[in-house]
């Protein structure tokens, strides 16, 4: 039995430390697979990705190949992508539309509702062979919140609504950006690996303490384009923001905007010609949501982490990002852009352009995050000598005053992680 504690969490002494072994030991990852990824709600896809009956997307979620699809009966399901005969993938395409999934190995065929509809040479099987029990297996639990579909490999897990806790309110404000109340994933997937432990991206996705030093070149780019990125005394970012725990390990940074937002905060980079359309989008927000909520939607931005590995960053654009460990020191990240259904062509183009300024493997910021996490992972090969990482920023302040550049949100992630890792 490992006697080293994973975290030291002492509010009175304002001490919060994470033991670096949790980023490097394969046995920790093994435990995470069973205690976290087999029990938590995991993002699989968005309703907009399977609009029509037969539409499907194949993904790997929690280490399992799955098919996210809408059946001919109109129901959205997630099947384990494994033939009930011997286990072969029944679908090898990334995406498409299919009436049936036919395993090529022995040609068993399933319809898009999962039923086993054809078995060659069925007469060779005995009386106990029942096609009704050999349907494609669905994941134990599937639910959605406002079109975001999550699955759970634990049949006894609490409901998604309950699980999401305070994160729902932040999903609401993101969905509220759409006049129709509907969002859609935009074509073009960014899938890239980072040679670092997956938990480091959970931290990094809403760690505003790193932004100014790591993303100097991004700030310079904004400054050159006419954005005021001066950092006021007492802050470490150009505008004020808070870090907040939302329950169940979910957390957020909730910031005043210092740069443009396609919805609906103009910045010079968008060009003079964009001013009028952004003003119209904003007017629609105000008329539909009222001034206060429109202000939140347009003039504040948020990076939301839904424990353990779904990140929705609603900043210079909106990105949906999920990531899974491949090994204890490598993760695979999948990221998409999301926007309102029915958005004009010019607004959509602006949203995508604004996305690429910061986010993504070719953006002006994400590559430096990747570099930071990779050299962190290299550095903590010293974990036996330099054992602890510090995450105590802001602990001396009242919880409601802890900033985005403090670390209450990171601690929320770690406390939940630690809690789950202590379970049997």
């Amino acid at each position, binding site marked *: 039995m490992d006697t080293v504690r994973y975290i030291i969490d002492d509010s009175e002494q304002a001490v919060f430390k994470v033991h670096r072994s949790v980023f490097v030991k394969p046995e920790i990852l093994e435990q995470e697979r069973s205690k976290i990824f087999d029990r938590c709600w995991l993002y699989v896809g968005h309703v907009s990705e399977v609009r029509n009956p037969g539409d499907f997307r194949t993904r790997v979620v929690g280490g399992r190949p799955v098919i996210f699809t809408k059946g001919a009966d109109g129901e959205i399901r997630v099947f384990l992508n494994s033939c009930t005969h011997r286990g072969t993938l029944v679908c090898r395409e990334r995406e498409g539309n299919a009436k049936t999934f036919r395993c090529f190995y022995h040609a068993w065929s399933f319809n898009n509702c999962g039923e086993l509809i054809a078995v060659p040479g069925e007469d060779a099987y005995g009386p106990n062979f029942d096609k009704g029990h050999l349907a494609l297996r669905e994941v134990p639990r599937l639910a959605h919140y406002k079109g975001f579909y999550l699955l759970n490999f634990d049949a006894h897990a609490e409901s998604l609504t309950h699980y999401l806790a305070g994160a729902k309110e932040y999903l609401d404000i993101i969905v509220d950006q759409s006049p129709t109340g509907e969002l859609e994933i935009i*074509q073009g997937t960014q899938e890239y690996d980072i040679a670092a432990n997956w938990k480091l991206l959970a931290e990094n996705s809403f760690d505003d303490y790193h932004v100014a030093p790591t993303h100097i070149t991004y700030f310079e780019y904004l400054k050159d384009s006419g954005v005021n990125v001066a950092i006021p005394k007492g802050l470490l970012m150009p505008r004020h923001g808070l870090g907040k725990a939302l329950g169940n390990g979910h957390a957020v940074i909730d910031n005043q905007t210092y740069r443009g937002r396609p919805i609906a905060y103009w910045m010079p980079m968008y060009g003079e010609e964009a001013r009028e359309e952004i003003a119209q989008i904003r007017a629609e927000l105000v008329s539909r949501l009222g001034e206060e909520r429109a202000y939140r939607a347009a003039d504040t931005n948020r990076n939301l982490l839904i424990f353990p590995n779904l990140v929705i960053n609603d900043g210079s654009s909106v990105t949906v990002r999920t990531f899974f460990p491949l090994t204890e020191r490598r993760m695979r990240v999948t990221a998409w852009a999301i926007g309102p259904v029915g958005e004009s062509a010019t607004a959509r183009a602006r949203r995508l352009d604004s996305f690429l300024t910061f986010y993504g493997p070719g953006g002006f910021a994400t590559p430096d995050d990747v570099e930071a996490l990779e050299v962190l992972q290299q550095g903590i090969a010293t974990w036996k000598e330099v054992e602890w990482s510090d995450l105590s920023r802001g602990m001396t302040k009242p919880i409601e005053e802890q900033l985005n550049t403090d670390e209450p949100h990171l601690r929320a992630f770690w406390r939940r992680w630690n809690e789950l890792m202590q379970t049997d």
Partner: protein
Amino acid sequence: MSEQPQISRAEIEDFLYMEAALLDEWRLDEWLGLLTDDASYLVPPNDAPDGDHHDTLFIVADDIHRVKARVKRLKSRNAHAENPKSRTRRMISNVRIRSVVDDVASVTANFVIYRFRRHEQIREYVGRYEYKLRVCGGDIKIAERKAILDAEQLAGLGSVSIIL
């Protein structure tokens, strides 16, 4: 009918090899000098290589302003992903002039770009270029360069912090 400029494949190849050398040698200001004032540099997503960047999320979709900003960034010691700078070696082949309309030559070429960096695995970016080259007298300028990766996903290629 307008008179079409005469340009040979050999001339185009010389130009592309020179461009590759400038990028491999991190002579980025000189590389910028090869671009027209309205040039664009595009890397489409692996799963939608034929997409349009106005309605598809690309990996890179730079207009001339962002290309210049990218070069400025890459020259900074604060572009951490490329500090220390990676070593690259570009192999350009299968150069074909697909059409010449007015003064614009549409050219395709295959590429392999090896990227080496200390403590990192070798990365092999493989794909094809689609160029729009503006040919004016003996002078060639790049109006558009699109680098289309063959990989199904970036995966081990990680981020695209160099200019492909």
